[in-house]
C-alpha cells in the first residue's frame, strides 16, 4: 500500500516538531554550541587583534569582524551533531522501533530529525549575527546577506546532520556520533575559519584549499566584508546545498541498509 503524500508530509511535520522541541528542551545540551563559538570569537578578538595587519589579511576594522563567518560555521557544525546523536539515542532506546512499528514513512523519520538540526542551525546563525551586532560586526551585503547566512546555517546543519546520521544509523550509538566531534573540530581548524588561506603555507594551506569549509566560510565572509556578489552567494548557499544533497543520499542509503538488515 502506498502512503498518500499528504500523510507523509503530516508525519514529517510532526516528527520535525518533535526533534525541534527536543533541542529547545535540552538547554544543557544546546547551550555549549551557542556559547563556545562566541567565546572563541571573543578569545580570538583579544589574542589576534594585531594579526589583521599581517600580509594576506583582508582589510577589516577588527578581528571580530573577520571571524563572524568562522563563528557561524563553527557553531552550526557543532550544533548539528546534536540531532544525529538524538537519532542514535532513538535507536539505542527503542523509540526508533516505536516509529517503525507504526505505518510511518521511513524517510520522514530521518528528515524529521534533520529538520530539527536545520532549524537549530538557522537559529544559531541568527543568534551569532545578533550577538556580534553591538560590537560593530555587521554584514555589508545588508538584509539579503543576513538572510543568506541564516539560510546557510539551516542548510549546513542539515548537511552535516545527514552526514552524522550515517554514523548514527550505522552504529546506533550516540557515543559513536559524539566521537566524530573531534573530526569536525580538526576540519574546522584546517580551513580558513580563523585565518585567511593567504596567510597559510605548506600542507596546512593545501588541506585548507581542498576543505569545503574554507569556501563556505569565505562566501559568508565576503558577504560580511565586501557586500553582495554572485561568487559569495554561490559559496554561501550552493556549496552547502550540494553537500546536503550528497550527505542526504548517503544517509538515505544507510537507512535502507539498516532497515534491510532487520
Amino acid at each position, binding site marked *: 500500500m502506498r502512503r498518500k503524500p499528504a500523510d507523509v508530509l*503530516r508525519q514529517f511535520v510532526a516528527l520535525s516538531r518533535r526533534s525541534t522541541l*527536543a533541542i529547545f*528542551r535540552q538547554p544543557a545540551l544546546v547551550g555549549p554550541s551557542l556559547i563556545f563559538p562566541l567565546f572563541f570569537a571573543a578569545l580570538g578578538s583579544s589574542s589576534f587583534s594585531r594579526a589583521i595587519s599581517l600580509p594576506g589579511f583582508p582589510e577589516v576594522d577588527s578581528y571580530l569582524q573577520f571571524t563572524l563567518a568562522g563563528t557561524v560555521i563553527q557553531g552550526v557544525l557543532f550544533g548539528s551533531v546534536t540531532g544525529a546523536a538524538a537519532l542514535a539515542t532513538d535507536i539505542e532506546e527503542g*523509540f526508533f*522501533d516505536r516509529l*517503525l512499528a*507504526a*505505518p510511518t514513512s521511513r524517510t520522514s523519520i530521518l528528515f524529521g530529525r534533520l529538520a530539527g538540526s536545520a532549524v537549530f542551525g538557522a537559529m544559531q546563525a541568527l543568534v551569532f549575527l545578533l550577538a556580534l551586532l553591538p560590537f560593530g560586526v555587521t554584514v555589508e551585503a545588508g538584509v539579503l546577506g543576513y538572510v543568506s547566512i541564516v539560510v546557510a546555517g539551516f542548510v549546513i546543519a542539515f548537511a552535516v546532520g545527514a552526514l552524522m546520521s550515517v554514523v548514527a544509523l550505522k552504529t546506533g550509538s550516540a557515543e559513536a556520533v559524539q566521537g566524530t566531534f573531534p573530526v569536525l573540530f580538526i576540519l574546522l581548524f584546517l580551513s580558513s575559519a580563523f585565518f585567511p588561506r593567504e596567510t597559510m603555507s605548506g600542507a596546512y594551506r593545501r588541506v585548507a584549499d581542498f576543505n569545503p569549509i574554507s569556501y563556505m566560510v569565505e562566501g559568508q565572509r565576503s558577504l560580511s566584508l565586501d557586500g553582495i556578489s554572485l561568487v559569495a552567494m554561490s559559496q554561501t548557499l550552493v556549496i552547502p546545498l550540494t553537500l546536503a544533497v550528497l550527505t542526504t543520499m548517503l544517509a538515505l542509503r544507510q537507512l535502507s541498509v539498516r532497515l534491510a538488515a*532487520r
Partner: protein
Amino acid sequence: MNSAPIIAEQLARHFGEVKAVDGINLTVNQGEIFGFLGPNGAGKSTAVRMLTTLLRPTSGTARVAGFDVVKQADEVRRNIGVALQDSAIDPLMTGFELLELQAVLYGIPSNKMKQRAEDLLERVGLTAAADRRVSTYSGGMRRRLDLALSLIHAPVVLFLDEPTTGLDPMSRLTLWEEVRRLNREGTTVMLTTQYLEEADQLADRIAIIDHGRIVREGKPSDLKRTVGDPTLLINVSRQHSDAAKAVLARFGDMRPTAEGTLGVGLKGGAERVAEVVRALDEAKIVVEHLELNQPSLDDVFAEATGHRLEGADNAPQAG
C-alpha cells in the same frame, strides 16, 4: 482460509548459529488473550518482533490481522497496536504530545486527534499528567501511557511485550484490569510474559516457549491438569538429601525444584502426605520445611522443559 487474527507457520529467526525462534506454529483466535510464556532469552520477544513487522523471519510465514507480515507489512502495522518492553517513550515530550504524534503516524484526522488523545488519557488515568513531560512519570505511568499510545488507532490486535515487568503490584493489577477491559471490548491480545501468575490470571490460552520452540500450548487449566499430581516440596539438611530423595521416589516421580529443595509429584495427592512424613521419620530424616503445591504453570513449565521458569519466584505477587 483461516481468519484467525494471528497465524504463524514454521516461523523462524536465526541470528547466525543461534536459533532464537526455531519454527513455531501458532494460532491466536479472535477475542482471545493469548499468553506467550517463557524465561528471558526463550524467543518470546523475537517472535513478537516478527509478528509486529520489526524483524524479518529467516523462514516460515505469519499473518496478522489477515495480512502477511513480510509482504503486507504496512497493512499489518495499520491494524495492530504494539507496546514493546524495550521501546522507550521520549522523555522530553508530554503524554499529550506523544499521543498527538502517534495519532499523526496512524493517519487520524486532525479534528479527531485531540478528543481521541483525551479519551485515552482518561482511560489510563493520566489526564492530570497529560501536560507533564514523560521524564517525570513513574514506571507504572509510563506503561499506562505506552498502552494508550498503542490504542490510538483502535487496533484489532494488540501486542504487549512484558507489559508489567518491573512494575509494583498495584500498577500490575491496574494494567491487568485494563487489558481485560480491552479484551471484553473485542480486542485480541497477545502478551508475552515471564511471570506465571500473569499468564495464569490473564490468558485464555498460553504457549510455553523455551529455546525458541513452543513446548506446550493450551488453556492454563488444561495444561495444569496434564501435570496431574500435586508437588510435595521438602527441605532437609544436606547430609539427609540423598536418603530423603530415595524415600520420596517411592511416592512418585521426582520433579525439578529450586536448589536445596526436593520435590515429588505425589501420587494419590494430599491423602498420602502423612504416609510420606512417617516414611521420612522412620528413615531418621529431619524435615525442616514441607509444603504441598497444587499443579501450577511452573509445574507445567518444569515438566515440559526440565527446569523451572527463571525469575518466576522473584516476580512481585499482585493481589
